[in-house]
């Protein structure tokens, strides 16, 4: 089989090999040697030796790095297309040789090859199909022919039990993305020449950034087939080719569409820093007087802006120079419509962010009031959304206030801002944060900045309501 001269891309002396460093570890008559020489010659002809990175799989070709004077990575079983994806995403100008056997690619690695092909990764995959697990001693491969005897099919492969052989070139060709899909063989001089052409095309496609190339090569394994070298080649010609037709399935070279890089430009450090800090401008206010950490729970249902109300409160507390923690209700219940968030503000570092006994409860619907009202600390405060809540509180050791938050938010045409009304009420009624800092923090807390003015007006409405209804004459007026 030694019909192709050696290449400068292959070492002349295999120093990484233990034992005889003049010969390869492949068996006489094996297809790997001749295919690997063809790949080396193509790399040499394309002048990309320095850019080439060879991915050795698990299988007989695991030691390909003994021979290739290129960059080398040994990959885990079946995962070379994922490893290659990683390499190419870092080094788009590298030339990655993804060299895989049939157990590796069509068995354990089916997921990786399908998805790499489907993404159109800039890879050249050589799929060496000898219909057997060679390195482990000749077990059934996904490509083993029907009735073929192997160590794990001692009476022959049966479709009813083992399924039928997988024709990978056809599978890959069924995808839209691949640029080049072809099946070849190394069974005769004619087929060797065709294989050499395919190898060259596959690698050149990668250099030209045309996309994903997949070259399946029917290759002899005399040792495990228990045949002579000549019988093995005849087996490919007379038997394997019947099931695995040699042809070009996909060839998009004539379209010559170079895959474009649509990514955002690489940011420098200053740009990165400004992206990560957002558009916050430094603000700080007189710290309000809080004598101990305060816990505020805002609870209601999804769509009332519960979480963003909490964010507004937390941002505002942070602007006062306070430490703050914000912890939402968590888990599947979030998808069931209930929503709550617990915000703790403190003038010192907050230990546990989990506090089930709030100082302030902002209850935005009936069920949440019922759930939380008895957890509020003695002397604490409950503010209810009076549009939706007219339940009895049943406690005389807490302060209770009501504000029609939903109605106000609807009137302002921002129904999702009902929580803004509640948080504003809290600011007016307590010393946790000031209304001024709440207003100043609104911009940083809003997802939809175009609603800034509407939210600001809503805050004024809420502030006026609380002031005129509760603060002017009767501070502790109850609902």
């Amino acid at each position, binding site marked *: 089989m030694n019909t192709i001269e050696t290449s400068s891309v292959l070492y002349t002396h295999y120093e990484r090999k233990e034992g005889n460093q003049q010969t390869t570890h492949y068996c006489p008559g094996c297809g790997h040697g001749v295919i690997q020489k063809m790949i080396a010659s193509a790399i040499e002809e394309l002048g990309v030796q320095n850019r080439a990175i060879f991915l050795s799989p698990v299988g007989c070709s695991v030691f390909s790095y003994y021979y290739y004077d290129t960059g*080398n990575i040994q990959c885990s079983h079946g995962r070379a297309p994922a490893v290659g*994806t990683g390499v190419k995403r870092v080094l788009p100008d590298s030339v990655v040789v993804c060299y895989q056997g049939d157990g590796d690619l069509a068995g354990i690695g089916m997921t990786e090859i399908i998805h790499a092909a489907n993404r159109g990764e800039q890879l050249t995959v050589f799929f060496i199909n000898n219909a057997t697990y060679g390195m482990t001693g000749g077990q059934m491969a996904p490509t083993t022919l029907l009735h073929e005897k192997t160590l794990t099919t001692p009476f022959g492969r049966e479709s009813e039990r083992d399924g039928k052989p997988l024709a990978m070139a056809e599978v890959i060709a069924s995808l839209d993305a691949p640029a080049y899909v072809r099946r070849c063989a190394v069974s005769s001089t004619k087929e060797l020449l065709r294989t050499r052409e395919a190898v060259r095309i596959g690698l050149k496609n990668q250099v030209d950034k045309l996309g994903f190339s997949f070259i399946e090569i029917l290759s002899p394994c005399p040792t495990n087939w228990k045949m002579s070298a000549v019988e093995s080649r005849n087996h490919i010609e007379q038997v394997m080719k019947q099931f695995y037709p040699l042809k070009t399935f996909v060839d998009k070279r004539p379209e010559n569409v170079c895959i474009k890089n649509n990514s955002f*430009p690489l940011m420098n450090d200053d740009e990165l820093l400004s992206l*990560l800090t957002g558009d916050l401008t430094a603000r700080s206010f007189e710290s309000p007087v809080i004598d101990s950490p305060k816990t505020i729970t805002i609870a209601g249902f999804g769509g009332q802006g519960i979480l963003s109300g909490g964010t507004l409160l937390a941002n505002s507390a*942070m602007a006062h120079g306070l430490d703050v923690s914000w912890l939402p209700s968590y*888990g599947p219940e979030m998808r069931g419509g209930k929503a709550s968030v617990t915000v703790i503000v403190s003038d010192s570092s907050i230990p546990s*962010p989990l506090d089930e006994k709030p100082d302030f409860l902002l209850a935005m619907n009936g069920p949440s009031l019922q759930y939380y009202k008895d957890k509020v600390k003695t002397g604490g405060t409950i503010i209810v959304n009076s549009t939706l809540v007219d339940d009895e509180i049943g406690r005389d050791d807490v302060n209770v206030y009501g504000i029609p938050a939903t109605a106000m938010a609807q009137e302002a045409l921002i129904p999702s801002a009902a929580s803004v009304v509640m948080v504003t009420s809290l600011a007016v009624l307590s010393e946790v944060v000031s209304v001024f800092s709440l207003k100043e923090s609104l911009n940083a807390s809003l997802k939809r900045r175009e609603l800034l003015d509407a939210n600001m007006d809503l805050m004024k409405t809420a502030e006026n309501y609380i002031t005129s209804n509760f603060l002017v004459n009767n501070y502790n007026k109850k609902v």
Partner: protein
Amino acid sequence: MQKRLVKGNEAAVLGALMGGCTHFFGYPITPASEIAHAAAYYFTKAGRTFLQAESEVSVINMLYGASSAGARVMSASSGPGIALMGEGLSYLAGSRLPCVLIDMQRAGPGLGNIWPEQSDYNMVVKGGGHGNYKNIVLSPDGAQEMFDFTRAAFSYADEYRMSVIILGDAYIGQIMEPVDIGSTVDHGKRKDWALYADEESRENLITSIFMKPSSQGQHNRELQQTYRRVEKELVDWEEIETEDASVIFIAYGIVSRICRSAVALLRKAGLRAGLLRLKTLFPFPSEAVLNHAKRKVTIIVVELSNGQMCQDVRAAAQYSTRIIELLKMGGEIPSVEEVVSFTQKTVLRSAH
């Protein structure tokens, strides 16, 4: 520096970018998905790479390839996903490739649920895959440390050529706190062992296979030497009111913050309590544990698992003091009051 209110999950992504990470490969899993969401936004916008892989197995192998190519790389997942990455983690260790992972722990075994547990401790701290290897494991207690630890993880990973795993939990990911993101991006340096698709690096080989037992043995011994160096150089913990303490909690992650509140309440009630908060899990702060154990303090390990971390505490304490476990599983979490009353009862018992 102005602080920004950030969720733990998002803080990790900011930390990664400030730590020079250029490639994030992700796969969705609750409660780690938000990290992928934030990475998809920030990495893409910053002209770095975010790619959603087809599985966690593919993720870890994409990390393997990208790390081979010299990049600072990361992913985030939760227990089931980290388990799937086990073989890949072993390959990374065998090939001495740096990598950063975040494990936002959920309850197991099996599908379990998405509430917090600390039951990935053994899997992550002891290795996770086959072979004699270790990961550096860091345990943040809030959003700021999610940022700080993730940022630092990349230089640790490069320095020791190891995987660094940030072991968080669902609460640490969900909590939003003020975070200082600093102002310096740490890009790292060219690595003399990596592949850059150029002439200078052409000779380099990334592999974990050594055919001769003597070569594989030597490779293993070198790995263990690196781990000994990590133990000396990286071990980190925080002592909170331990100096005069007669009862010391040992905890990490969200539980350490509950214990911190308990320490304050217990001291108000006249009990000298303290907290040894673990910041690194491998290396494990064994000496710190032993020092307290020798003083015959009562150690209470509070942990969201069947006592996985406590095994390491017992080994470190060398049976020289009383060690009591307060364990929760399944997503249950002890309240501050529960830790306080458990401790008071424990001390009362030992007084009689």
